[in-house]
């Protein structure tokens, strides 16, 4: 067989197209997927499935998603909320429909999702990526109204702006209290990065001020790295008080700006109270949230253990060992998309390998990380013992600066993948 020059160009074009273009699926292999929630999990899932050729509808209540990652840099005064905001219209691709509405009901038998606006969406597979809702009744005195005085700022947006404004208005010498919840919760190192970056701001603007962490747990994520950084960057400014030292908060009085602990009352100039959390409300409606407050799912397909056909990813899901992070949500979304694609084509989803990497900043040029590699064992994800772990202690400043650059690079790549941003 020989080819003339023209045939060869056509053949070469075909080869390139096979690499670059989305695969053409036959009609029977094309799945209808409804994705609820346009955060790191949901937006990544919707876009990946659309690229694989499936029919995707993304349902999100808010027109713009504001990322929790780097929102502590807003509190630290070196980033703006606008730079963390992504209009979801910018995340849509061909074959993907975006609906700005709330999901209110799920019928797993009829395989439908009902929206607040009345529309009923049919699906072959439903993906829930609802993030967390706050357990406002878990802490006496704390509720949605109290969050206007003692912001949680654990969903980025107006709460972040409110906490930043309170820090700016505070007099020098004030006490900033951060009250993190018990595990598990969204972004385990987040409260301690927050303490660090608020200290970065206070050291420059209000150096007589103090930060007190009143914690519901004895130990926390990346603790040796944070405590090493605090001693080096902010000596004497940050105090961590675990329950054994009277740190557990048992009630708050927002009008008086006080927090009650088992050992007495603490008066705060600024109080950041982060309540306990559970999977977002639609998970309860769909019947996929259990008594733990989270959604047990397969570590291969992220399909609910409780309701077939419904998959849960991101902070809401409990697939095994992975922590609740934007990196995890994005990683789970990509594994889910490949698994659904296999199922729609009548193939067995492959046993996956997932990664989590969480960077934290202790200052704009001072970063470190925790990483984990996860594989499936008996249907759930387990962390590989020989991999992962923390950045080295006592690392040179250039390593910390490099990890801070890598943190920003992770953010740029991941928001591009999730939101097209």
């Amino acid at each position: 067989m020989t080819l003339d020059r023209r045939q060869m160009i056509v053949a070469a074009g075909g080869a390139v197209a096979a690499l670059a273009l989305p695969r053409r699926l036959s009609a029977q292999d094309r799945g209808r997927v409804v994705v609820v929630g346009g955060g790191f999990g949901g937006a990544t899932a919707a876009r990946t499935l659309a690229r694989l050729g499936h029919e995707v509808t993304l349902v999100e209540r808010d027109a713009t998603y504001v990322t929790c990652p780097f929102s502590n840099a807003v509190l630290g005064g070196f980033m703006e909320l606008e730079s963390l905001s992504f209009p979801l219209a910018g995340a849509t691709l061909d074959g993907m429909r975006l609906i700005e509405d709330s999901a209110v009901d799920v019928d797993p038998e009829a395989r439908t999702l009902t929206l607040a606006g009345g529309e009923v969406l049919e699906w072959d597979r439903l993906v829930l990526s609802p993030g967390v809702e706050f357990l406002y009744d878990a802490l006496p005195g704390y509720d949605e109204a109290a969050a206007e005085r003692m912001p949680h700022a654990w969903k980025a947006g107006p709460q972040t702006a409110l906490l930043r404004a309170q820090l700016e208005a505070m007099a020098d010498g004030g006490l900033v209290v951060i009250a993190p919840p018990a595990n598990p919760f969204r972004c385990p190192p987040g409260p301690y990065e927050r303490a660090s970056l608020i200290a970065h701001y206070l050291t420059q603007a209000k150096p007589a001020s103090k930060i007190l962490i009143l914690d519901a747990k004895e130990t926390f994520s990346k603790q040796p790295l944070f405590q090493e950084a605090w001693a080096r960057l902010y000596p004497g400014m940050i105090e961590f008080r675990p329950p054994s030292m009277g740190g557990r908060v048992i009630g708050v009085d927002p009008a008086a700006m006080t927090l009650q602990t088992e050992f007495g009352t603490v008066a705060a100039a600024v109080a950041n109270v982060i309540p306990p959390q559970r999977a977002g409300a639609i998970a309860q409606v769909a019947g996929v949230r259990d008594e733990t407050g989270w959604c047990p799912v397969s570590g291969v397909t992220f399909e609910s253990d409780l309701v077939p056909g419904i998959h849960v990813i991101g902070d809401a899901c409990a697939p095994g060992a992975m922590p609740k992070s934007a990196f995890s949500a994005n990683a789970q979304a990509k594994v889910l998309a490949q698994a659904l694609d296999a199922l729609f084509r009548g193939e067995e989803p492959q046993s996956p390998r997932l990664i989590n990497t969480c960077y934290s900043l202790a200052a704009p040029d001072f970063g470190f990380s925790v990483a984990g590699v996860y594989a499936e064992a008996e249907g759930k994800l387990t962390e590989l013992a020989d991999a992962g772990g923390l950045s080295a202690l006592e690392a040179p400043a250039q390593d910390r600066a490099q990890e801070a650059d890598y943190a920003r690079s992770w953010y740029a790549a991941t928001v591009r993948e999730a939101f097209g941003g």
Partner: protein
Amino acid sequence: MRSLLVLLLCLAAGGAQAQVPPPGATMCSGCHGEGSILPLDDWTAAEIIAAMAGFKDGSRPATLMPRLAAGFSDEDITAIADWIAAGGMRHDTR
């Protein structure tokens, strides 16, 4: 001419294989995708395999990658490297 045809067919076959990423392959874009200061999409498979081997045996110091490379066998890494080199990480951003 004949060898060129074989090459083109191999490219096409590689493209088809690239559409189902091996386990772990889609994780890379979280840090090394578009927008990253360390994009991987123009690396050859041999370059990726050599870098990962260096992370695993300590001859290539780095802040993070040794911790991740430890979670992948040589076979895992070869499959991922081939997928990336075949254009697997390149999104068609229509």
